[in-house]
């Protein structure tokens, strides 16, 4: 039993699980803020892509990841504010707005990428963030590969799990978010500014998703590719459902998806006999299975996806 736990292949799998879970964990934590406040943030995908792009460009220009990450988060926040203008102020269909914003993000990032770096075949690279050396800690069974082979961004992401729980469960902002997501009229009559709370929640939401996107270009690959998020923003929406919109549940669900991704990467090298395309499908198929198994079981905020109009008539 212990032999399995210390097996290098298994340790490698665990370490990859966490590494692959981080981007979708961040996006899903972001989605949690928006959905608990009653806004369906389909734009997570576009926010991730924006973050991946802005993070990459900033790191390329400044050479500093410490500058690149806040820049990516700020760009994501801006993306969220635009989305909130449509979803909250104009009361537009949140699905349509999200899809539109995602398409705009694809266009804008690839337009400016070409503008900045040209259309040559030589892809500019940045040095990826490496895990700080933890020495012998990295060889602890289970904990070692899960935690002590990760980079600083992964630790930040993990720290956001209890922080998000605290914000939602204990703070006034969290109370406002929960109230506005369940019964915006009640919150409004008590003097809570529904629009303000939702703007804040969506901005945080998209900012965190952008952070998640930035980990793709800054830590995982060191390059920016058109559409490199490859549907992770949508997978994050499924993670939210599976994790019941609770930070701990979201962490568990994100790890499950990270494990699926790690598994398919590993399996591609092994002589499984399975065509690699079927392994590549695994995360997407898992998303579908999760949706089919857990959707429609309730638990969603009552006002999710419903635009709120201020009381005008009686």
């Amino acid at each position, binding site marked *: 039993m212990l032999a399995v736990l210390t097996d290098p292949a298994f340790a490698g799998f665990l370490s990859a699980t966490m590494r692959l879970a981080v981007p979708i964990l961040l996006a899903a934590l972001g989605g949690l803020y928006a959905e608990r406040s009653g806004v369906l943030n389909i734009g997570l995908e576009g926010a991730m892509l924006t973050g991946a792009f802005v993070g990459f460009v900033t790191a390329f220009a400044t050479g500093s990841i410490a500058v690149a990450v806040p820049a990516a988060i700020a760009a994501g926040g801006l993306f969220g504010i635009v989305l909130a203008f449509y979803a909250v102020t104009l009361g537009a269909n949140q699905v349509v707005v999200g899809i539109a914003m995602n398409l705009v993000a694809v266009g804008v990032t690839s337009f400016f990428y070409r503008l900045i770096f040209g259309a040559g075949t030589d892809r500019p690279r940045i040095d990826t963030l490496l895990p700080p050396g933890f020495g012998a800690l990295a060889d602890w069974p289970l904990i070692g590969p899960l935690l002590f082979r990760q980079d600083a961004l992964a630790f930040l992401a993990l720290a956001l799990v209890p922080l998000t729980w605290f914000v939602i469960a*204990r*703070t*006034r*902002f969290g*109370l*406002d978010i*929960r*109230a506005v997501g*369940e*019964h915006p*009229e*009640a*919150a*409004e*009559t*008590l*003097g*809570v500014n529904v629009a303000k709370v939702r703007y804040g929640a969506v901005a945080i939401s998209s900012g965190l998703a952008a952070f998640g996107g930035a980990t793709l270009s800054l830590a995982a690959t060191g390059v920016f590719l058109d559409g490199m998020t490859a549907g992770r923003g949508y997978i994050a929406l499924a993670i939210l459902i599976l994790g019941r919109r609770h930070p701990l549940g979201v962490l568990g669900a994100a790890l499950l998806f990270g494990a699926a991704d790690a598994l398919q990467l590993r399996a591609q090298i092994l002589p499984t006999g399975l065509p690699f395309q079927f392994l590549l499908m695994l995360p997407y198929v898992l998303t579908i299975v999760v949706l089919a198994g857990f959707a429609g079981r*309730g638990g969603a905020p*009552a006002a999710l996806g419903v635009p709120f109009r201020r*009381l*005008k*008539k*009686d």
Partner: protein
Amino acid sequence: MTETPPLLSMRGIRVAFGAVVANDDVDLQVAAGEIHALLGENGAGKSTLMRVLAGLIVPVAGEVMIDGAVEPLGSPHEAMRLGIGMVHQHFMLVPTLTVAENVCLGLPSTGRFLPDLKAAARRIRDLASRHALEIDPDARIADLSVAGRQRVEILKALFRGARILILDEPTAVLTPQETEGLFRILRALAAAGTAIIFISHKLNEVMALTETITVLRQGRVAATLRTADTDARALARLMVGADVRLPTLDDERAAAPHDDGKSDAAARPILTVAGLVCRDSDGVARVDGASIEVGAGEIVGLAGVDGNGQQELAEAIVGLRAAEAGRIAIAGEDVTRGSVARRIALGLAHIPEDRQHTALVEPLAIRDNFAVERIGEPPLSRRGWIDRKAVARLASEVMAAFDIRASGPGQTAGTLSGGNQQKIVLGRALSRDPRLVVAVQPARGLDVGATAFVHRQLLARRAAGAGVLLVSTELDEILALSDRILVVYKGRIVGAMARRDISVERLGLMMAGKAA
């Protein structure tokens, strides 16, 4: 010579939504410790006036004075600061949060960044015991009874230091006994110096509880008088502006002496419901073994306090909700698993409570709304091709018969007034000559004229031999129209009463689940 100014004084209030004037030159004065009724029909402008007071609407003209000083009222915070608290008709409570969390919501004084729920809970217990309100601060709202939620609403206002307490139609969701309980609480609050504004359209309650009455009609003050100096009949006249009487079954019987309501109804049941069970998504049995029979040519009133399963029962009968156990038959045919279309074909007509969402397709033209149930039948279509002239013809006929005021059959249904929308629903349902009518709160939101029209239509269907199941939380409506009354409580039929045996007191006890 200085007189103490009244606690609240509103002067010359005017509110307009576009071209519609909801309040026009309204004056209202309420003293500390006074219980003041604001009486008026649906749409008379009561709620609008109170929303001005709650800081939710800014009037275009007029001023509000508290203790004689003119105060700007532009936000709920402002209203709260001035000691104005409102108990809304539809409770403004977040069901997933606890009592304490609801009370702390929007109240920075309980902690700007980290609300101190424990301290709030202590204050809630304290306040509750002082005003004899039974409340557990740690309970989730969703787990409370309706009366319990109402107590939380009152406490929420008191917690915020309310000196003026507004209650918008607070008895609509209560049994007669719970209403008595509420009145005791309100009298005690008034005795302690709180000014109470009691919004209602129920004359007997206004007469029983209040000291002063302001009657609103079409957005203006029709009269302000002392309760002791008036009576229900005079108030009714002031409310509607004329002597309008709603039709009742007794008028019908007086006109047709052979109609004793017993005919051969029992022999020809048009609707049979036996042992019906329906659960909601959480697995709670909303309908729990209900049995009902409606005969041809009778109106059966289903009375009950809102939320006791009558909604779900009606939905199951018309086919919008699956039955878990039991049996439903229309005109003798088992339709427990039958489609809505099958039920309609058997003669079912449904007048749902929530007409905007359940009956109307608001973005569509009126004529298309008339066609939704029978688009597949001639003359509206042949071999799947729609005959647009026939659709328009049908619409024109029904619009004439039901006096629907619109620019034409092409007008979008969503742009019509509530009364005209209800007439579309009625017209569509009743112009097919149905054998069974399921009408849920058919007069909700309508003024007296429209209500009279709706009631006449239901009586006309009864006279034509149809069975009518009238589901209503308005006891007056049930009493006026029903041949028999059934009472629903927690998803079960707990009592039945023939018209000649009706006792309001017994009905009230049954509605509260107490055997009578």
